């Protein structure tokens, strides 16, 4: 009987209990996220920040001079054989963009790879620290032994640079050929490029070939609005995308990605 007397304000009571509970939850979450708390100090975040502020000595990057690309896919094939990449997935690939209406038409090529971003979202979301930034050269790498294949990073990357390795069931992507560049060799795609369209080097050194090209040309990066600060630069890239079909002056736009899933995402 005692319980039933309370009935009229039941609903409000529940909502108030819920409100208090929400506040408690936020307080709990907040205290976990505060820098310097027990949770944060378990990671080596603080060390990372220190080294970011220090002078960067080596930041590997690439310049892709689209004017010199002939769309031959030699880089795609070199990369495939370098890493024995399973069918259907790519660490590096070349897209074609065709636009306009006959006789006013154009076609351009866009070699793609991981941008080894300076603000890599893939690193931020990785729950196991399997994806990490190498302090010594700025390469973003995946530790295959640690990756749990949760595929969170595949969503976080705005460039679709990552894929699930269907054989090994871990997530993989371009690593700038760490095994080659750490021995002073150029990445396999750069080594094989017939037109000399891919140029690799140290962006932190103002006298490197890549730094000079960037200084002297109008360069661009992909999806700069994402705030990822890519370290792969393009000279003369055509940024036309399928959404540009809405433009009356183009009308016809065809993007051929040469990847298993046909559309850019």
């Amino acid at each position, binding site marked *: 009987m005692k319980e039933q007397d309370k009935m009229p304000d039941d*609903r409000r009571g529940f909502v108030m209990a819920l409100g208090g509970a929400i506040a408690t*939850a936020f307080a709990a979450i907040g205290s*976990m996220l505060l820098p310097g708390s027990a949770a944060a100090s378990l990671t080596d975040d603080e060390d990372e920040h220190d080294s970011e502020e220090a002078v960067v000595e080596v930041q590997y990057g690439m310049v892709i001079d689209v004017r010199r690309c002939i769309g031959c896919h030699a880089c795609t094939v070199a990369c495939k054989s370098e890493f024995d990449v399973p069918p259907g997935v790519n660490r590096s690939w070349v897209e074609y963009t065709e636009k306009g209406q006959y006789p006013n038409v154009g076609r351009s090529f866009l070699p793609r790879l991981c941008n080894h971003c300076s603000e890599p*979202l893939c690193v931020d979301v990785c*729950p196991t620290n399997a994806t990490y930034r190498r302090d010594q050269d700025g390469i973003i790498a995946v530790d295959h032994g640690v990756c749990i294949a949760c595929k969170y990073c595949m*969503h976080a990357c705005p460039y679709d640079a990552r894929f699930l390795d269907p054989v090994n069931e871990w997530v993989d992507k371009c690593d700038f050929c760490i095994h080659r560049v750490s021995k002073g060799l150029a990445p396999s795609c750069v080594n094989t490029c017939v037109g000399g369209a891919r140029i690799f080097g140290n962006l932190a050194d103002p006298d490197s070939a890549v730094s000079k090209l960037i200084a002297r040309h109008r360069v661009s990066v992909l*999806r700069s609005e994402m705030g990822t600060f890519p370290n792969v630069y393009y000279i003369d890239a055509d940024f036309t995308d399928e959404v540009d079909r809405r433009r009356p002056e183009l009308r016809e736009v065809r993007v051929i990605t040469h990847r298993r899933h046909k559309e850019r995402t």
Partner: protein
Amino acid sequence: MHLGTPWGLEVILYLFLAGMGAGTITASASMLLRGGGGDGQYFSIARYGALVGPFPVVIGTVLLIFELGRPFRALNLYKVINLSPMSLGSWFLAFFIVISILYALLFLPWPNWHGERMSSWRRRIAWICVPSGLSVAIYTGVLLGAMPARPFWNSPIIAMLFMISAISTGMALIIFTRALFYKVHLDVPTEERSWHGSGYVLAATDVLLIGFELLVLFLLLMFAHLTVGSVKYAVEIILPGGELAVLFWGGVVLLGLVIPGVIEMFFVAPKLLYGGHYTAPRSIDIVVPLAVMVGGYLLRYVIVMAGQLTGPVGL
């Protein structure tokens, strides 16, 4: 189960089940604390929630672990903690699984389980259950919202939506279980009053949550539609003519929210508005929660798929 997207049915089911389980335990613990932790009708509601709540969470988690391909790799999640929503979420989840099972055990008919010591333990654990349940319910939405590369998800309101839906489906699970298992003699006046009394608490709360959820969905759609760029293109997938429009409007909005909301309002209104009587047949307490739960699953399905099928526009 591959849908051709990085996250397939296991992940969607996990998001739904973990949310529902967390919502059930949160609702149960709130009810218990509201009733002062003692016996009575709040206790019986709390008990149904406590006893069913851990099941969906554990089932969802097992599904998720097997989705990884090599289940033991999941242990790598517990070798570090970082600020990734998935890392924080897995720690929340592990803690919640332990605490919710503990909570459920306290409701089993041990000898002397109505004693003062047991009730005080139940109260203490309930106080932990509420924030940890909410953190599990909310992290799944934060997880999706964290990435500008997925414009459909990249909004703080997704976390709010998932949290409300979690509590609403949790309430539905409690109503459903209670309708199936509660033995009541409706010809005994005290029992009849107590049955309808607690039924009213549950239904009224559910109506409120459904209303909030509709409001949040409206805000999500309105802001996405009013902006230009990636988010506007992304939301087209659930607007009329889009690939997921039928599932969204028919399944999530109509079946999962509007219809259950209207039916429950019909039964709740007399008591809410002019102190009349609340009497809902048992069949309603079975059908309506089922619709809410199906709608909750479809909500996860539509949101997760819409986010994966759309991306930023331009290069």
